[in-house]
């Protein structure tokens, strides 16, 4: 024993104080762990998180008006639509100058279709005016106000100018308002016409179908999970194959199977006709409607309900039920008061999982849902690939994402994301 160990701090073998040495080792360990994680983290941030952020950004981005008509936007600042009159000559002169540049760059049609989402008719207004304005001479052809109104009297419409003014900012909440069936009116946000309201209805339908699918999965999954966890291991392993095989089978294989089964000339209808339950000229319509979506998606998502239920039920000791019965409980009381409460974590986990998965489903509703059985995700896909209203698609996507993240947070609270098990 040397003197130093008794008076000074404890030293490590190389003479540094033990505390600092330990700290350094800990820091090195942390650094090594982070170095191992870093490549993947960067990879996911670039390939996945950045795209999501991009989508969120696009749902509020709106620089097209300010970029295409810079002078008009500035000149329009002082105009007040409450005056009830179209803006004065200064604005129209700026518009003529901006449009000439825009026509040269061919951006005026894009602006037209952007503003057309807010007020129908603006697209053709821009296209028509673009052709004429191209030939004007900015110096000698003034004044422009009358000329514009001569091209199309819509240029004298206060509403057109109000839309341009409302959307002249760099960012807008207009897409989000559209996504919940509202629009920017003269006096702030207002509901759209009854005939144009579809998104809230679609959202409600998505919710309704997802809840129905979750409930039917629970209804079908609970007995099966109970059976699997209460029979000998060997038998349950065999029966488990029947659950895992659909789980591993391609989604499109299962969707095409349902398409084959549910068609009017399909297997189920053929069997029903053969048995005599259904007349040949009166075959059931089971596809391209909500029924088709519900049945096909219940089948596809059922394994995601059974597996968490099973993993919880396996840990419930069967002796509890026997004890309850020996104390005089009926079968039903024993199940409802003793077994069921213990299986609730499994129900929660399975239900949230199925609900999260079903709320964002696209492929199956698209193929078997027809027009009444489609989800909000089908509308997102439509806006991105067909109508090209990307901002609205992004806003709908952001709302859906928010919904899923809330559920994900709940799932994490109930189950813990570390406890997700596969197979």
């Amino acid at each position, binding site marked *: 024993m040397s003197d130093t160990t008794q008076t000074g701090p404890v030293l490590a073998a190389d003479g540094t104080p033990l505390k600092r040495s330990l700290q350094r080792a800990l820091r090195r*360990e*942390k650094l090594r*762990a*982070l*170095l*191992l*994680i870093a*490549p*993947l*983290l960067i*990879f*996911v941030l670039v*390939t*996945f*998180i*950045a*795209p*999501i952020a*991009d*989508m969120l950004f696009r749902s509020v981005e709106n620089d097209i008006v300010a970029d295409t008509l810079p002078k008009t936007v500035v000149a329009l600042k002082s105009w007040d639509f409450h005056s009830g009159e179209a803006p004065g000559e200064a604005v129209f002169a700026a518009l003529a100058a901006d449009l000439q540049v825009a026509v040269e760059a061919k951006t005026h049609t894009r602006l037209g279709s952007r503003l057309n989402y807010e007020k129908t008719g603006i697209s053709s207004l821009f296209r028509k005016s673009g052709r004429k304005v191209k030939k004007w001479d900015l110096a000698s052809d003034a004044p422009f106000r009358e000329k514009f109104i001569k091209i199309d009297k819509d240029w004298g419409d206060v509403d057109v100018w109000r839309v341009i003014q409302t959307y002249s900012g760099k960012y807008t909440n207009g897409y989000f308002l559209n996504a919940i069936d509202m629009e920017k009116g003269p006096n702030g946000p207002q509901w759209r016409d009854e005939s144009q309201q579809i998104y809230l209805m679609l959202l409600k339908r998505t919710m309704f179908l997802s809840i129905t699918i979750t409930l039917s999965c629970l209804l079908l999954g609970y007995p099966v999970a*109970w059976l699997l966890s*209460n*029979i*000998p291991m060997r038998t349950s392993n065999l*029966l488990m*194959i*029947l659950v*895992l*095989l*659909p789980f591993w*089978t*391609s989604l*499109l*294989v299962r969707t*095409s*199977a349902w*398409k*084959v*089964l549910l068609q009017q*000339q399909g*297997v189920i209808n053929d069997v029903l006709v053969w048995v005599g339950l259904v007349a040949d000229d009166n075959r059931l319509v089971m596809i391209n409607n909500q029924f088709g979506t519900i049945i096909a998606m219940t089948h596809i998502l*059922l394994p995601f309900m059974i597996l968490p239920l099973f993993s919880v039920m396996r840990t419930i000791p069967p002796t509890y039920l026997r004890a309850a019965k020996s104390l005089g409980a009926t*079968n039903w009381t024993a199940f409802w008061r003793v077994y069921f409460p213990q299986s609730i974590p499994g129900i929660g986990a399975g239900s949230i999982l199925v609900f999260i998965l079903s709320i*964002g489903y*696209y*492929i199956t509703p698209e193929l078997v849902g027809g027009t009444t059985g489609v989800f909000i*995700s089908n509308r*997102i*896909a439509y806006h*991105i*690939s067909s109508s090209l209203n990307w901002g609205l698609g992004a806003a709908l*996507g952001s709302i859906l*994402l928010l919904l*899923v993240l809330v559920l*994900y947070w709940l799932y994490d609270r109930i189950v813990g*994301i*570390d406890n997700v*098990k*596969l*197979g």
Partner: protein
Amino acid sequence: MSALPPYATTGQRVWYYAFRVICALIFLFLIIPILVIIPLSFNAEDFFTFTPEMLSFDPAGYSLKHYRDFFTNPDWTGALYNSVRIAPVATLLSVGFGTLAAIGLAQSHVPFRATIMAILISPMIVPLIISAAGMYFFYSRIGLQGTYWGVVLAHAALGIPFVIITVTATMVGFDRSLTRAAANLGAGPIRTFFKVQMPLILPGVVSGGLFAFITSFDEVVVVLFVGSASQKTLPWQMFTGLREQISPTILAVATILVIVSIGLLTTVEILRRRSERLRGMSPG
């Protein structure tokens, strides 16, 4: 419920059998759609239902023509070629990055562990249509939209959560004194990794890889948006086939895919049991 006691009342007997019948029906609901397409894929006609010849087991009612179509039609062979070209590369990417990160995450002191985990798992949670939309926007900004590498990177990102989850699950039972023992005996970190750690976590890595592979191989939403016609994969071709010119070749493809998934399921189960045996758990 395991067995009916001899003193059971009639009501109990009825319920016991009724319950089993209900469960049997649910199992049938799960498995029949998959089984029914197998015989239908040998249909000699272009129908999606059983013809009278098939029901009377007349050999004339059966044929391999849909399989022939699958292997000769350039639409299908091209799609198969693309799938085979995309899925393994995406799998390699997710397994490589994923395994490293899972080992890092298993260390005892990882700062921001929960946040990192949430980010890495998120591709599994975010609905595919949202991932697809975001990737479409972002990849067209950086010029990856419609390219082979765009699809590969997107699929790799989707496969990563599965690798993380399976490998982390294997790491939980990993006895850390083994790596210390290896270090004690003079092995460097790299040698320790390949000689001690890798063989023990290999089952987890392989089944994670299989999950990643099937994710990419089955994926259709993201490839629809991120890919272009020259990256048309098998699921994409099936999707258009089901939506537009519905042809019975789809059933032949489906049958082949069912056989592939049976093979994958068997492999994963064997690996899972092997891993549990290695870690000294019950053989499940």
